């Protein structure tokens, strides 16, 4: 059906011709009624914008898209494709902090000479461009002609005369499957952003992979609170509905965090069938939706509650399924999957309608890179949530050091080959060669190294961690997220906090456990006892010495916008002495390594009151 398209640009035009006034997207605003964007309006506004972009020489060039949540983003994205430009979705820079630095980094890395935004943010964006030394970059507001359209609850599509004339002047670009559609900036480090180059062929291939995995059809209706610059938000929740020719109902992540129930309510209101997000969103729903709100929910239409973008926890899924079963949620709807921006998005997922696979394995064997199902005599076990089947990729489990494929039952780095694998990192040939053109011994080149560790068991992919963050101590592989999760179990004072586990080289590699603690009335003695229990846990269950435990205030452990623990950042904050400890126990060699902390010398432990 849809595989015949040569570009996503062509697909949007065909959908617009087929579907006309049908809604492509409904955006639920915090205040005011819903905003509707029809297929016809999307096409007409994209044509008008493409004419403006061409006048600014944007053909073949990166164009930065800085939008608040809402349908204007989708118009701008389509407008870039209609102009033959390369869309670069990014968050609004804001006025301070990490996000500002990150977007400034993206601006610099792309070298974009055109930035698109809306009227509300045009002045701030122009100021930001000037401050960034890019005053010559053109900033266009794209909602100028359509204010009145988008403010109304219905009938958005009358358009204006000037826009209609501009749309009429548009001619289709000669876009081929190997031209770039957009750059996806993953949540990599602030200082070195990496833009994944996604071609039209990649995008169309991954849309078809999504259809085969999720068994989607135009009868599905999508639901999302994810940001549009997030890969899972963009590919699965904004573009997949368009590719199918159906509706997506969106709300901002801000609305969702303020009122998680508003997202769940929209599922019943619009009869939505597919949608989801990272693990933490499900936790938030379970914790904050009240009994009264629960009583009004209808989740019976929800066919696939997608879970991805961060490790999927069995406990989170079980708690969510239990809490919302009275609202008609089926436990088998919870759908973990695996994907990454470097493969456009989707790599694997379960069989719709069947519960996600679980595998309880021998934790000791897992540390030795072996996936061995637990037996009656296994003493320490770990339960993994399966990420389903791999349909459209040549997937290999590879020893990351030797580059050789590993036999079945072994954990190794996941390598991929297929039409969804992106073209590389924008303007970074060395990193591109290393990551996207890996040579598999005896099988040729062209493999993507995902940096993720996993194994295949009975045809199902299990993700066990990130290769870059795997800690190797005493010949054992320790997965930091496992230690972080286990520390939470030590005490309720630690259970609500986040942790970051990493190693430092103080003559030998040493484990450092940084964990947030909520214990307002704890004195030095109690904090010392808790730190001692953490050390016991790590020593006993992970078989490595835990010489360094740093208990910190809630909010100290840094995470990315998608909730991933920033272990590398935490490690450098620790080494620079920039973590304020409520209580810490440090090995003398590590203490000597930490600079500028102004620590009292000779003390094995110290505390601060709060």
């Amino acid at each position, binding site marked *: 059906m849809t595989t015949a398209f040569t570009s996503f640009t062509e697909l949007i035009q065909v959908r617009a011709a087929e579907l006309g006034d049908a809604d492509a997207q409904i955006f639920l605003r*915090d*205040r005011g009624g819903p905003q509707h964007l029809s297929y016809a309006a999307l096409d007409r506004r994209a044509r008008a914008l493409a004419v403006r972009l061409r006048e600014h020489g944007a053909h073949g060039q990166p164009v930065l898209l800085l939008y608040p949540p809402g349908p204007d983003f989708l118009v701008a994205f389509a407008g870039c494709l209609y102009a033959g430009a390369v869309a670069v979705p990014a968050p609004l820079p804001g006025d301070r902090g990490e996000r500002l630095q990150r977007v400034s980094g993206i601006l610099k890395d792309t070298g974009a000479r055109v930035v698109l935004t809306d009227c509300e943010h045009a002045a701030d964006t122009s100021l930001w461009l000037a401050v960034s030394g890019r005053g010559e970059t053109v900033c266009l507001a794209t909602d100028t002609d359509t204010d009145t359209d988008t403010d109304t609850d219905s009938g958005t599509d009358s358009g204006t005369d000037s826009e209609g004339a501009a749309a009429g002047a548009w001619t289709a670009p000669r876009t081929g499957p190997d031209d770039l559609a957009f750059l996806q900036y993953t949540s990599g480090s602030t200082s070195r952003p990496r833009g994944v180059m996604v071609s039209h062929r990649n995008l169309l291939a991954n849309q078809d992979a999504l259809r085969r995995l999720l068994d989607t059809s135009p009868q599905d209706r999508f639901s999302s609170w994810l940001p549009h610059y997030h890969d899972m938000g963009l590919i699965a929740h904004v573009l997949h509905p368009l590719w199918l020719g159906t509706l997506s109902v969106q709300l901002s992540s*801000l609305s969702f*965090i*303020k*009122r998680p129930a508003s997202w769940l309510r929209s599922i019943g209101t619009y009869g939505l069938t597919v949608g989801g997000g990272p693990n933490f969103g499900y936790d*938030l729903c379970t914790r*904050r939706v009240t009994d009264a709100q629960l009583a009004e929910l209808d989740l019976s239409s929800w066919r696939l509650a997608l879970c991805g973008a961060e490790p999927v926890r069995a406990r989170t899924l079980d708690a969510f399924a239990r809490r919302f079963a009275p609202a008609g949620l089926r436990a088998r709807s919870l759908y973990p999957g695996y994907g990454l921006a470097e493969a456009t998005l989707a790599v694997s997922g379960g069989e719709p309608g069947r519960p996600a696979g679980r595998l309880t394995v021998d934790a000791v064997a897992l540390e030795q890179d072996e996936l061995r199902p637990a037996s009656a005599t296994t003493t320490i076990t770990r339960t993994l949530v399966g990420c389903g089947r791999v349909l459209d990729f040549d997937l290999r489990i590879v020893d990351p050091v030797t580059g050789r494929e590993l036999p079945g039952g072994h954990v190794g780095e996941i390598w991929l080959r297929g039409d969804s694998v992106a073209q590389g990192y924008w303007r970074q040939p060395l990193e591109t060669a290393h990551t996207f053109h890996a040579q598999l011994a005896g099988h040729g080149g062209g493999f993507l190294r995902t940096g993720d560790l996993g194994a295949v068991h009975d045809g199902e992919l299990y993700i066990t961690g990130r290769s870059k963050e795997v800690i190797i101590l005493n010949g054992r592989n320790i997965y930091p997220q496992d230690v972080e999760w286990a520390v939470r179990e030590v005490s309720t004072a630690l259970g*609500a906090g986040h942790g970051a586990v990493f190693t430092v080289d103080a003559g030998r590699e040493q484990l450092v456990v940084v964990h*947030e603690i*909520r214990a*307002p*009335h704890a004195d030095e003695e109690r904090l010392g006892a808790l730190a001692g229990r953490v050390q016991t846990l790590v020593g006993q269950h992970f078989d490595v010495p835990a010489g360094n435990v740093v208990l910190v*205030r*809630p*909010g100290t452990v840094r995470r990315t916008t998608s909730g991933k623990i920033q272990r590398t950042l935490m490690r450098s904050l620790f080494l620079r002495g920039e973590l304020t400890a409520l209580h810490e126990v440090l090995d003398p060699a590590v203490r000597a390594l930490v600079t500028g902390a102004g620590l009292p010398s000779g003390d094995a432990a110290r505390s601060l009151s*709060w």
Partner: protein
Amino acid sequence: MTSSPPRRLQAPLHQWLTAHLAVYLDRLPESIDPTVPLATYGMDSVCALSLCGDIEEEFGLAVDPSLAWDHPTVGELAAHLAARGADAAHRWQR
């Protein structure tokens, strides 16, 4: 800053804010000092946004997502909300 917010409105607001923050921050209400920045008690962005959601539902006011960072103590939050006409006493009597 707003000047001389109506003081009689502020005591019930203190109480309402403290009760809600105690839940998000997992602390006893009496341990929250209205003059101490909430970040000291472990406020993060999810906690701050949760408070915004609850304020909007309770008082029918639209507040900025940065509210709890711009007015970082219970005292400052109460003064700001009172100046905008939030009336916790009235709400609690419903």
